[in-house]
């Protein structure tokens, strides 16, 4: 989230896409309701914030929304694109913000274009663009040329206007299935949010990310928010609801192939030195007034990380052990792991609190991949569909040569440390009870394993042992590091003074500082661990001095305890809040006050050299146009890989031209279905009573939701002769599930310019392990929702397309 949960109460208009917070994040949803029930909030003269829910399924979120839009899954770019077009056509954007705080004025170099569904510089053989063709026109100093009148035909503003002119209400309706009248009602409300005294938030979840266009679905919302001047403001922003307790913290610390802690890129082959790496990876300064804070300090953050990991073995002479960091050959994300296993190239997989089988996508293919491994380790508190895969559906244990280890681990309440919520609030938790049975902490298991591997290398030698030998283990007991010690390492310190640092501004690139993750520097300064702070709503007057809900002394949020990111953009050029009733930060004549400023605290707005507001980007502005996405500088609607219709905008380039097709590339048979055989759109989701798969081990929750089911719209059920409670078979090209039907008006038919389609909904929670599975041992063999989902993902992030695929449904005898 750019903002945070409590901040949603500051909004006038709440757009919810690809999310169902009332059911999936029910306690967070109280802040939506507080906005709705606050007469000060709302468009026009207030009267309460308005909630607009666009979702294939009418849920409890829709029930309290002011407008519910039944949208076809995966078409939110068309919806947001239509809103962008409406705002531009009616001149409703926030002009001062757009001119000065976005890259609207930047001039794009010649050669950029968009024709028949393809951006310039497409290579069909490799299904890839040369994204360098989408850059800015530069001056002699290497800065981007700008036209502050926004009239230049190649300035971003004009190109954007042209790009989205195709997204008319008619076209939006034809793609999304949303009736034009409903869309226009929403557009009129959204159009009021470009006023400085109004603010809108967009809230989303994996209903946007789980698509082959996932990154662009989110970018389309962000572009709309920039146009309306709503990024950086309390009550605004682009807010992702995370789905697990600590996805946020563990993304920040880079349990992710493409990054190192603090969102530093993993180096690529060919980057021989730190200089090469920084040159390739750090953002470039593109405007004289851009601070380019990230780019400018990239090297300091990287050197401080290398010093944290390699200590005395990281010296100026050896480029701070830069070559100890592995450089991947190519994409190494979730699906790539199983793709490699299917090719016989992956020997071992360690799954810690994560089950490959249930997650999929294409669980049947994932089961085959697991059976191809030499060894599999499952570290968990409970058995999972992965630890038990070898006797799962269709598996013959005698034929599976995979060695499987199930290591009992402690879970959240048996250890301390922090969880980071969706709003980046880093909150410490106590160890409440001791480990059950012989369970051990995951990090103690890894420390012990690492120690044993290191001993083997000491005794026997082997492949490049240096990084193993020199990895720092500066803990009181290297086999049992305390999380408090690790937190201090993450925070970092000055090696000369020995003192922990209070800000990442103190990090250096000369090897005299360490920081395991620069964005967390300051969470554990010399004064102590700030994530333990507890000054909350017991005393709002004292603990929330601005009244904006920041509660600065409750826990700590990264970076530097800032509650709203990009908050320089919450004030105008002179430093006055766009809306004095809802200030983020403001200039008091001497310094910025309010939230922790995302800006130098004493830099005057009247200083001719004052930095532009978005200090992290090379432009110094928000990006309406971006060459950092591999599938286009502007978000464009592409159909899901499995879709019942051709793309109305450009039928010849219907789905993403750059999404990576694993099976095709590996020479495996096609596993995508056609609309002729599988005419029904399916999507997946979670229920209030369950969380993915772990809750299959919690009896009370199983009692509340005991058995797998599929939700079917009434019309479809009538056509198929299906009644609530019937057993049905749902098939895709990849597999099938056999579950009970619930016939409901929550789902319905969509009219896509004359083509009528149905969408059905499948909760993801069930499998062949857990309390339900023990109650229904036969039935549970056919419950894996992800046996239906396609093995393809977002062009940029490779997030699988769990949320849009084709199936057929039939009543079982």
């Amino acid at each position: 989230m750019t903002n945070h949960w409590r901040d949603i109460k500051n909004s006038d208009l709440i757009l919810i896409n690809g999310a169902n917070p009332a059911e999936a994040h029910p306690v967070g949803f109280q802040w939506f309701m507080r906005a709705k029930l606050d007469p000060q909030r709302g468009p026009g003269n207030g009267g309460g914030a308005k909630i607009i829910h666009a979702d294939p399924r009418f849920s409890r979120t829709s029930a309290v929304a002011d407008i519910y839009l039944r949208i076809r899954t995966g078409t939110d770019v068309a919806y947001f694109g239509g809103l962008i077009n409406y705002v531009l056509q009616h001149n409703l954007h926030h002009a001062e913000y757009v001119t000065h705080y976005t890259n609207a004025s930047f001039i794009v170099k010649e050669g950029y274009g968009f024709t028949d569904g393809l951006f310039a510089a497409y290579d069909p053989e490799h299904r890839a663009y040369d994204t360098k063709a989408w850059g800015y026109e530069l001056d002699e100093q290497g800065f981007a040329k700008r036209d502050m009148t926004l009239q230049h035909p190649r300035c971003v503003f004009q190109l954007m206007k042209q790009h989205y002119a195709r997204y008319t209400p008619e076209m939006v309706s034809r793609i999304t299935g949303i009736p034009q009248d409903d869309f226009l009602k929403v557009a009129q409300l959204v159009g009021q949010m470009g006023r400085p005294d109004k603010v809108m938030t967009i809230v989303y979840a994996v209903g946007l990310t789980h698509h082959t266009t996932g990154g662009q679905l989110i970018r389309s919302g962000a572009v709309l928010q920039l146009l309306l001047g709503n990024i950086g403001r309390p009550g605004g922003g682009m807010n992702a609801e995370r789905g697990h307790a600590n996805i946020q913290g563990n993304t920040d610390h880079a349990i992710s192939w493409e990054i190192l802690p603090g969102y530093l890129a993993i180096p690529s082959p060919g980057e021989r030195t730190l200089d090469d790496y920084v040159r390739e990876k750090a953002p470039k300064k593109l405007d004289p007034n851009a601070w380019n804070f990230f780019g400018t300090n990239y090297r300091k953050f990287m050197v401080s990380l290398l010093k944290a990991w390699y200590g005395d073995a990281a010296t100026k002479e050896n480029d701070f052990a830069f070559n100890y960091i592995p450089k991947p050959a190519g994409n190494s994300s979730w699906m790539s792991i199983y793709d490699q296993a299917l090719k016989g190239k992956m020997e071992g997989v360690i799954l810690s609190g994560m089950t490959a089988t249930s997650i999929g996508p294409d669980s049947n293919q994932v089961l085959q991949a697991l059976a191809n491994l030499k060894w599999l380790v499952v570290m968990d508190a409970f058995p999972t569909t992965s630890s038990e895969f070898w006797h799962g559906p269709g598996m013959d244990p005698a034929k599976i040569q995979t060695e499987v280890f199930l290591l009992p681990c402690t879970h959240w309440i048996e250890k301390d440390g922090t969880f980071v919520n969706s709003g980046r609030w880093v909150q410490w938790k106590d160890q409440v009870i001791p480990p059950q049975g012989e369970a051990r902490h995951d990090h103690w298991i890894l420390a012990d394993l690492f120690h044993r591997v290191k001993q083997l290398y000491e005794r026997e030698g082997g492949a490049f042992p240096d990084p193993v030998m020199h990895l720092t283990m500066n803990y009181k007991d290297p086999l049992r590091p305390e999380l408090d010690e690790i937190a201090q390492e993450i925070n970092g310190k000055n090696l000369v003074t020995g003192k922990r640092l209070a800000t990442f501004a103190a990090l250096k690139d000369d090897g005299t500082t360490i920081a395991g993750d620069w964005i967390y520097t300051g969470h554990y300064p010399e004064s102590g661990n700030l994530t333990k702070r507890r000054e909350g709503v017991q005393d709002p007057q004292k603990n929330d001095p601005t009244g904006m809900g920041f509660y600065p002394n409750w826990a700590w949020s990264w970076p530097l305890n800032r509650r709203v990111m990009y908050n320089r953009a919450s004030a105008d050029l002179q430093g006055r809040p766009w809306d004095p009733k809802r200030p983020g930060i403001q200039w008091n004549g001497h310094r910025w006050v309010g939230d922790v400023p995302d800006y130098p605290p004493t830099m005057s707005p009247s200083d001719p050299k004052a930095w532009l507001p978005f200090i992290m980007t090379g432009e110094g502005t928000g990006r309406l146009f971006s060459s950092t996405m591999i599938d286009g500088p502007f978000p464009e609607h592409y159909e899901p890989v499995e879709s019942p219709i051709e793309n109305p905008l450009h039928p010849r380039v219907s789905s993403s031209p750059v999404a990576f097709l694993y099976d095709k590339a590996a020479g495996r048979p096609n596993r995508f279905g056609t609309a002729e055989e599988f005419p029904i759109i399916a999507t997946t989701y979670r229920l209030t009573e369950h969380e993915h798969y772990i809750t299959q081990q919690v009896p009370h929750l199983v009692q509340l939701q005991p058995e797998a089911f599929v939700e079917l719209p009434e019309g479809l059920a009538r056509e198929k002769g299906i009644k609530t409670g019937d057993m049905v078979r749902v098939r895709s090209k990849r597999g099938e599930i056999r579950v009970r039907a619930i016939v409901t008006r929550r789902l319905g038919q969509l009219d896509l310019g004359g083509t009528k389609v149905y969408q059905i909904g499948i909760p993801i929670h069930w499998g062949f392990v857990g309390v339900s599975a023990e109650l229904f041992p036969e039935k549970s063999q056919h419950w894996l929702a992800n046996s239906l989902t396609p093995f393809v993902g977002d062009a940029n992030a490779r997030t699988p397309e769990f949320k849009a695929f084709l199936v057929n449904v039939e009543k079982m005898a």
Partner: protein
Amino acid sequence: MATLTRRDFLKLTGVSVGTLALSELGFDLARAAEVRQTLRIAGATQSHSICPYCAVGCSLIAYTRKEPDGSVKLLQIEGDPDSPVNEGRLCPKGATAMQLATSNRRVEQPLYRAPGASSWQKVSWDFVLDKLARNIKATRDRTFVTTDAAGHVVNRCEGMAFAGGAAFSSEEGYFAVKVMRGLGVVFIEQQARV
């Protein structure tokens, strides 16, 4: 009365006010205090936790008591009224967190399934850690690439993957990344993508 918050109520019903008679609450607090004596959290130790499910980040209060045999018993988990995130509220999952915290369904010792075997074997920690250390070294040695086909130094281990951590404490996650990158692992993933 109308402005009484849940927190005030908790304060009022705390030990120090046991002497109050008919209070502003409109009922006899002394009686209530007597009843409290039999509550299962009486005399318990209070700890702070965070809900382990979705990422709203609801604060929890956990009550434990040391049993005569020295063990620690978890008595109750409830929402923390001080939190600016949840203000004491919990959803069905958070409210049943007790059943996740202590469960007779837990795996309590290491299990090993040999190639081709049709059942688990209970084994010791030393057995699994030694065997796994051997596996990791063998895989690393077999699949480690120091220089790629183009002649670039890459120092990567291609044959093993690490995935997980959505329920790790952040510090554990950081440590896992440090260890895995130290081994040269490039296939690293967690729940954010899926």
